[in-house]
């Protein structure tokens, strides 16, 4: 039975297996070549506790010419914020160790450059042209402190719309590989390993930021690293907020209201409407956020914008129950960055009843300051309209790592974009 199918099926299976074998052979050849040639250029970067001499964290790094060792900022951030407690060391392919000195960094793009006084490996060349989408590239590093590894994956292009551009790399980047190089088939630097979301979705810092950073190394010598973090974050927030704050916010409709919609392509937005269930009200929500952030320390991320609107209406709850529900809902806010008191102050809030675009609302605006980074604040705003007895708009926005002026400018534009739709517009 079905014998007429056997021959073509066998042919097909044979062809597939051969194709797989050839493909695997080619893959192995590519990875092996990269491993052998690039091995002397890749290092493990260890951050040691000065008191005990044991490692407190580790990542990877590579030589990028002139003896400069490039890694991620997040690998060496302890050298910036706690230099009195930490020092850096390299471990090369031959398991030799030596001290490293931090020279410069780019906190926004998560890059840092270090140097060793007594060891220099061959520098990797930066690729002149980015690979084509779908092309094989090779990420190298020391995953989980298990020794040097090569991870073959796919180049999937530059995510230009992000506030902080990243290369989308399909391949598994594991902890410990941060700061390692990602190379094309000619072993030229395409990017620097920086983060992974699991399921082979990973990200690389584009190699052009390595060039830009290395060009700045000699200009910025003997700088105060904490001040440098402040300067870079201040320039970054001014740069990325300028196009957002220079014009009125886009609006979308939510119930009878107009609210801020997607501000730029860097924002990802979602919406939902509640299914009818035992709830005595209907809810529609719209949420937007920037998905990229700047790493400062393990529990301190900054540079994010997120906002959420919810529209509630009810026919069955009376005014007391409806506003009672809103009052219980009002404090349910979500603050992404949960930095501790060593890094940020508590929020200080101002609240009141405000008339905004002829809408009466309870408005709360809060600020907290960064203790590490001078001049930067997190600005938080939350509001609920009080116009109607059976419907209300609830909106909350958080902008982190901005100047006071930009934080308030954002809040002003945000409030400007909240209004009631004209009759018949809904």
């Amino acid at each position, binding site marked *: 039975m079905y014998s007429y199918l056997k021959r073509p099926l066998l042919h097909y299976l044979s062809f597939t297996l051969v194709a797989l074998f050839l493909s695997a052979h080619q893959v192995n050849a590519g990875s092996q070549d990269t491993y052998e040639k690039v091995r002397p250029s890749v290092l493990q970067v260890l951050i040691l506790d000065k008191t005990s001499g044991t490692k407190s964290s580790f990542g990877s790094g590579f030589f990028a010419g002139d003896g400069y060792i490039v890694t991620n900022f997040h690998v060496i951030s302890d050298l910036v914020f706690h230099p009195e407690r930490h020092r850096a060391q390299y471990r090369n392919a031959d398991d030799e160790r030596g001290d490293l000195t931090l020279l410069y960094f780019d906190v926004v793009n998560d890059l840092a450059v270090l140097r060793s006084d007594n060891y220099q490996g061959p520098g990797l060349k930066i690729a002149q042209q980015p690979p084509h989408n779908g092309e094989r590239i090779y990420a190298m590093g020391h995953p989980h402190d298990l020794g040097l590894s090569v991870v073959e994956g796919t180049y999937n292009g530059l995510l230009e719309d992000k506030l902080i551009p990243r290369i989308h790399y399909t391949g598994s980047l594991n902890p410990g590989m941060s700061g390692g190089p990602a190379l094309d088939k000619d072993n030229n630097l395409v990017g620097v390993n920086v983060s992974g979301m699991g399921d082979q979705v990973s990200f690389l810092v584009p190699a052009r930021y390595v060039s830009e950073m290395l060009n700045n190394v000699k200009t910025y010598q003997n700088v105060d690293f904490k001040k440098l973090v402040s300067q870079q974050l201040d320039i970054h927030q001014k740069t990325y907020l300028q196009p957002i704050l220079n014009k009125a916010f886009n609006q979308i409709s939510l119930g009878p209201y107009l609210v801020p919609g997607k501000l730029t392509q860097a924002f990802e937005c979602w919406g939902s409407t509640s299914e009818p269930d*035992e*709830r*005595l*009200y209907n809810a529609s929500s719209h949420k937007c956020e920037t998905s990229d952030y700047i790493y400062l320390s393990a529990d301190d991320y900054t540079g994010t914008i997120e906002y959420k609107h919810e529209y509630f209406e*009810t026919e069955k*709850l009376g*005014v*007391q*129950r*409806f*506003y*009672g*529900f*809103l*009052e*219980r809902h*009002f*404090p349910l*806010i979500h*603050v992404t960055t*949960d*930095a*501790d*008191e*060593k*890094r*940020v*102050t*508590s*929020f*200080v*809030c*101002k*609240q*009141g*009843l*405000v*008339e*905004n675009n002829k809408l*009466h609302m*309870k*408005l*709360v*605006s*809060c*600020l*907290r*300051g*960064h*203790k590490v980074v001078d001049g930067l*604040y997190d600005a938080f705003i*939350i509001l*609920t309209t*009080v116009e109607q007895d059976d419907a209300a708009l609830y909106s909350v926005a958080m902008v982190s790592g901005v100047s*006071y002026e930009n934080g*308030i400018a954002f*809040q*002003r534009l945000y*409030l*400007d974009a909240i209004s009631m739709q004209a009759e018949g517009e809904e």
Partner: protein
Amino acid sequence: MMMSTLSEYFLEVVDRSGLVRERVSLDQSPVIIGRAYDCQVIIDDPYVCPQHVKVSLVENGELLIEDLGSVNGLSVTKHGAKQSQLQLRPGGDCFIGWTKLRFRRRDEQVLPARHDHSRQLVFSLLQQPKFLAILIIFPFLQLMFSSWLEEARQVEPYTLLVAPATVYIFLLIWALVWSVVGKLLVHRACFFTHFALASVMTGLILIADSVIAYVLFMFDMDLLQTYVQLLISFIITVVIIYAHLHFASRTKPKSQLLIAVLISAMFTVFSVYIEYEGDDEFSSSPEYSVYIKPPMFVFGSTQTTDEFLSGMDEVEREVDTLKKAKKFD
């Protein structure tokens, strides 16, 4: 000089809890006191013998108490040494079994009558079962109503009983404590009165909290809410504890008020401690009043967005002060 007779005396029989159980006139001499029915004074105490003591008057006007060979004897104090006989002056006392015998002269001065507060309308109402039932049920309904207000979903009615029932368990314990105190001090428990008082306290504090929150919101004085609520709760607690003490003690009204103030102050200090404990500690979430809308007064005093945001300069200065206060190193 006229000779005294035993009929000038009467006997107070004081039970183990200190309560005068009965007062007996001593008409003939001698008087036999015991548990037997042929005694002149019959004591209902299993530790007293059928014929326990004999009381007679001696020449100097004192009373002579003689043990009639009882099992548990006669003593000056409750667990004192057994005496075969005792001589007592008027006002003196002795123990037989677990019973105290106190002898008084008929012409002894008594304290002036105390004003009967329980005849005041409020206190007399607090002893009427129907009124007590209303006082107990009303706050329960009030709590059910609060639960209903807080529920924005379709719920089964019985679920609205959960919160009031939980509160009432604590009120039962509270009332029970006062009843035990009352039973010990004045030999009456008045459980339902104490239970009603506890319920009233809960109801009044609930109403006061809501009214205060609305009024302060109306006058844009949200920040005072906690303090005013604490003050009003303190006053309510003083009044209720005063009422508890009225039913559970025999101290003077002034002393009851002082004790009520002290107990309430203790509760208030405890509440303040709970409220502000760790207040200086860092919080990673914004903290603000969640009160949104007093329905009738919403348009009382509103500011424009510009006026509101221009006030953020002050907030920035406060944040900068915080930054300087605890600089990260």
